[in-house]
């Protein structure tokens, strides 16, 4: 008897299916709400090599859904924390920890080393980047995403370029204006739990040949009423035309621009500029009742709804840094301000006040 005996005796799966999982190399991009449950079940099922890629740090508001992490992990890199915990559970699995964000520069080399990719990221630029890299490298992509109470899962690129990919369904990336993410709209932790587990199920079926995976299909699931909808994705030349045709072209793509995002900056860099440049300005674009307020650095407080009409002190400043709760509204505010203040340096601070790097989270306890 070993830890896979229940899979060995499962008719149609058996020791053969188990061996296929053991031989497989799976890369999970994003160890968040989707990635955590997917990782837990892939490791439990006995996938032999698991890459975990994420440049983000655990924050307290992640804990309702990112079930690999606890309060002691706040501030630690997600890929490191996830692989440490999973290694201690399953020492025979080769966990390959990549504590960095995926980019056009690292994507090709990283993805090429795996048999299959799971997209557990949380934004459109990265989703298009991962889709395009998997297309160029002929790697199957287990896609999933959520919005409020709904989730979607698909197996893309299952047989390379003859199969459906994300650009067949959505040729044009939405702009940041269009769809808020879950830190803006909220989410029950159990929804990404269900959808990420479905990603693990599709991965196991794809690798082992057991059952039918969602080939060229997107499954929609609503947690409020358990309604499902299965869409057959059709080939779409409009999407194919937008795909980079080579690795070289892929490396030159700017996915943040493709998706209408504007310049972002880290807290550390923004604060350096604010403290050294008297003509710089920090603006909190949240509503006045949103907590916690930032006492340090004396930000101007101008909610997003009022940002379209810039005050004189904004117009006079050289460099403007905007922040909000999680970094989404400040991106919108950058776009609005750029329309009236053409040519000015305007930045959105990544992660907002909830970022582990924000001055509120960086201040040591008791001071």
């Amino acid at each position: 008897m070993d830890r896979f005996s229940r899979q060995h005796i499962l008719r149609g799966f058996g020791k053969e299916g188990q061996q296929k999982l053991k031989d497989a190399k799976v890369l999970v991009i994003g160890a968040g709400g989707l990635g955590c449950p997917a990782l837990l079940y892939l490791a439990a099922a006995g996938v032999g090599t698991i890459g975990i890629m994420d440049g983000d740090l655990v924050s307290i508001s992640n804990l309702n859904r990112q079930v690999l992490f606890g309060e002691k992990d706040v501030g630690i890199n997600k890929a490191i924390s996830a692989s440490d915990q999973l290694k201690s559970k399953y020492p025979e699995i080769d966990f390959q920890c990549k504590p960095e964000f995926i980019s056009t520069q690292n994507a090709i080399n990283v993805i090429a080393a795996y048999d299959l990719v799971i997209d557990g990221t949380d934004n459109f630029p990265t989703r298009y980047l991962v889709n395009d890299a998997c297309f160029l490298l002929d790697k199957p992509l287990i896609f999933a995403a959520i919005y409020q109470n709904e989730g979607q899962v698909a197996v893309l690129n299952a047989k390379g370029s003859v199969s459906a990919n994300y650009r067949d369904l959505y040729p044009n990336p939405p702009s940041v204006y269009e769809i808020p993410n879950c830190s803006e709209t909220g989410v029950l932790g159990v929804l990404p739990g269900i959808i990420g587990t479905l990603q693990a199920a599709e991965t196991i079926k794809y690798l082992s040949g057991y059952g039918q995976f969602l080939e060229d299909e997107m499954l929609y699931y609503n947690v409020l009423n358990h309604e499902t909808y299965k869409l057959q994705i059709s080939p779409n030349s409009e999407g194919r035309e937008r795909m980079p045709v080579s690795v070289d072209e892929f490396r030159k793509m700017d996915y943040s621009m493709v998706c209408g995002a504007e310049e972002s900056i880290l807290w550390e860099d923004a604060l350096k500029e604010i403290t050294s440049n008297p003509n710089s300005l920090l603006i909190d674009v949240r509503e006045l009742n949103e907590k916690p307020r930032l006492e340090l650095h004396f930000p101007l407080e101008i909610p997003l709804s009022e940002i379209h009409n810039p005050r004189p002190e904004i117009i006079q400043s050289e460099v403007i840094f905007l922040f909000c709760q999680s970094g989404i509204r400040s991106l919108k505010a950058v776009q609005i301000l750029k329309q009236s203040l053409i040519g000015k340096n305007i930045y959105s601070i990544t992660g907002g006040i909830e970022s582990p790097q924000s001055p509120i989270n960086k201040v040591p306890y008791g001071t």
Partner: protein
Amino acid sequence: MEKINTSFKVIAFGMIAEKIKTKELVLEGIPNTDVLTGYLHQQYPELQHLKFSIAINKKQAVGNTMIPLGAEVALLPPFSGG
């Protein structure tokens, strides 16, 4: 003479359902997906700024596609959260 029933059901997902304030509509007299998109943009101007795909009877419609009698049409926005 009896009027031919040209109605069909539209189901909406994600943010589209939020903007049109219902998950289901019954429409009639709309022959194809281009006319449907125009109708939706006019009735619900907020949809003009949202990208979504259209499916007819659970198959993605690419380009302008005829809507058959009694079809089930789905409006499918992309999700990005994770």
